[in-house]
């Protein structure tokens, strides 16, 4: 190093010749989902983790696990030793019809989950962290406040925006587009027409990943007599074989029957379960199309974006198109390239485009 460093114990001497200390700004786009939480950051990091948070049940399990809190797949794997929380139901914090204890637990788990997601994005200590979190279009005010409260502990400033809107914004498709964002808890539909969508432009449906799991559980019970399985096993089967196509490889799974692993063909069961969401989604699309300017309805039908983890079901785009043909006369569905990160990428773009003054006002 050729420069000579001189430590000056007094305040800066000559009044402002030194450059101001520059603080970086880290933008985060967060898709806080029922099943998975995805984060993309302006430092190039992108992370997705299962939205599970577990706390050791007692001192013994804590000593064994060597951790106070576990997240994602690790929490799922060790769930027998943990008090396991899936803090977000239908994309928002679990709230009503629960005891105070459950609620407190979910809030704590949500805070820890958000903190962990942000930590995984590797922010530097000297950077400002500005985050935009995508939430379901119909999240209640209580839920929005709770998510804000949970995020505030880990970021300098935070904003919420509608999840399907962020998907469209991220792809720069702001005009005459219909977005289908299939999550675990809800499927959000959003109509974009060049301005910020309002309540009448958005629909939230229960026909989503969890509903498919529930249906698949019933189908398996019928087609795999005496087989034992848990909801998690059902979810794994769906994620591995999920398809609505007629021509697919057979889905063969091993399930225990009285303790003995037994092979079952679950192709039809999986297809039937996955297909259950097609009709409600197209029905929802129909409602949004029918209330749109008739002059632009055809264009809207031609620009349907399919996003979210649930969109990974094989052949779903074609199945929705076929159903749109039958119910609405036509339709063209475009599956986005990164279903897991579509919402987070869009939220990141919103964060980037948000003016500094707005961020400062919310600090």
């Amino acid at each position, binding site marked *: 190093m050729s420069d*000579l460093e001189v430590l000056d114990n007094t305040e800066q001497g000559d009044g402002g010749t030194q450059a101001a200390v520059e*603080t970086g*700004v880290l933008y985060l786009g967060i898709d806080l989902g029922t099943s998975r939480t995805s984060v993309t950051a302006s430092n190039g990091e992108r992370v997705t983790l299962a939205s599970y948070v577990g706390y050791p049940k007692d001192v013994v399990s804590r000593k064994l696990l060597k951790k106070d809190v576990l997240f994602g797949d690790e929490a799922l794997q060790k769930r027998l030793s943990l008090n396991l929380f899936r803090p977000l139901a239908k994309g928002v914090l679990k709230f009503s019809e629960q005891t105070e204890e459950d609620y407190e637990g979910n809030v704590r788990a949500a805070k820890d989950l958000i903190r962990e997601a942000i930590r995984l994005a590797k922010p530097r200590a000297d950077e400002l962290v500005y985050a935009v979190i995508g939430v379901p279009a119909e999240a209640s005010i209580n839920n929005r406040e709770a998510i804000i409260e949970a995020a505030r502990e880990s970021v300098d400033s935070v904003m919420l925006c509608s999840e399907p809107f962020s998907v469209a914004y991220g792809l720069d498709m*702001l005009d005459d587009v219909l977005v289908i964002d299939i999550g675990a808890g809800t499927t959000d539909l959003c109509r974009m027409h*060049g301005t910020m969508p309002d309540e009448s432009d958005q629909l939230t449906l229960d026909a989503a990943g969890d509903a498919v799991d529930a249906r698949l559980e019933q189908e398996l019970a019928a087609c795999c007599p005496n087989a034992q399985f848990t909801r998690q096993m059902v979810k794994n089967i769906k994620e591995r074989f999920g398809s609505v196509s007629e021509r697919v490889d057979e889905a063969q799974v091993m399930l225990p029957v009285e303790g003995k692993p037994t092979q079952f063909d679950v192709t039809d069961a999986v297809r039937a379960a996955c297909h259950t969401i097609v009709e409600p989604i197209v029905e929802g699309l129909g409602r949004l199309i029918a209330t749109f300017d008739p002059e632009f309805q055809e264009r809207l039908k031609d620009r349907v974006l399919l996003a979210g983890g649930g969109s990974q079901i094989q052949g779903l785009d074609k199945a929705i198109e076929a159903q749109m043909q039958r119910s609405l006369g036509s339709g063209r569905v475009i599956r986005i390239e990164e279903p897991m990160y579509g919402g987070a990428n869009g939220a990141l773009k919103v964060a980037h*485009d948000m003016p500094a*003054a707005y961020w400062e006002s919310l600090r």
Partner: protein
Amino acid sequence: MFESIRRKKGAATRPAPARSEGGGEEKLLGRRARRLNLVNQAHLVRSIDQAVRAGLAGRLTEMDDEAIAEIARTTQAELLTLLKAGAQAVRGLSKEKFLEEAERDRRRILAERERASEDLQALLEQVDTRRREMLQAREELEAESRRSGDAQDEVLAQRIASLFEEEDGASDAAELRERVTDLLLGSVRTEREKVVKAQIAENRQSVENFERRITKLTRSLEVTEEELRRMAERKEVDPGVASVFRTVQGLNEDEDDLEAKTEMMATIFEANLVLQKGGGA
């Protein structure tokens, strides 16, 4: 606040960087942080040269430029040598070294915690035993006291009775006997109760001492746990990955649909302002 932002929005689509004020720097560095001024060596050499020339000018008018330059060179060389000799080498700890150190600390704290836990456990067992013993002793003492006390009372009463029988059976003597007997028995009972209370107090004192030690040990265990937690956090220290942005961005002026996007950002902000600050700011 919000209104003023709205007014600005139309005028300037690219907002100024958020952290231009000194407050942010102070927050970042802390109030007591010292400033580090970096001086380029060439700049320092030039400054010495100028200082020497300024110092000599006017005093030694006959000295030629060559001689002044020579004095400046000598001063520069001497000053740099002195500065380098007196400078302290500052070196950061490598991540490996840091982790090694953290691991050593962690092991030490774990051992301390283990010891404290064992001590606490042993102490708790001792207290339990002592409590049980105390209860048992108290019950035995009370029973024994009752038994022996009754016998003693009887003996004492008989002695007094026989003592008075030796006297004449005057009516005032019988009354006197009764009074003396009551008096004596009352006195004996009081003494016995005092002894029992003293023993119970002694035992209680001993248990309280144990409890104080337990409280102290528990606190020490909590401190160790806290230290461990901090260690765990330190161990996970990661400098992080720097963002590609040094300042707050905002929409580019050449962005497609700039007007629509500006409006959308304002709408999102408005909704969040209402949500987070109730609409006022």
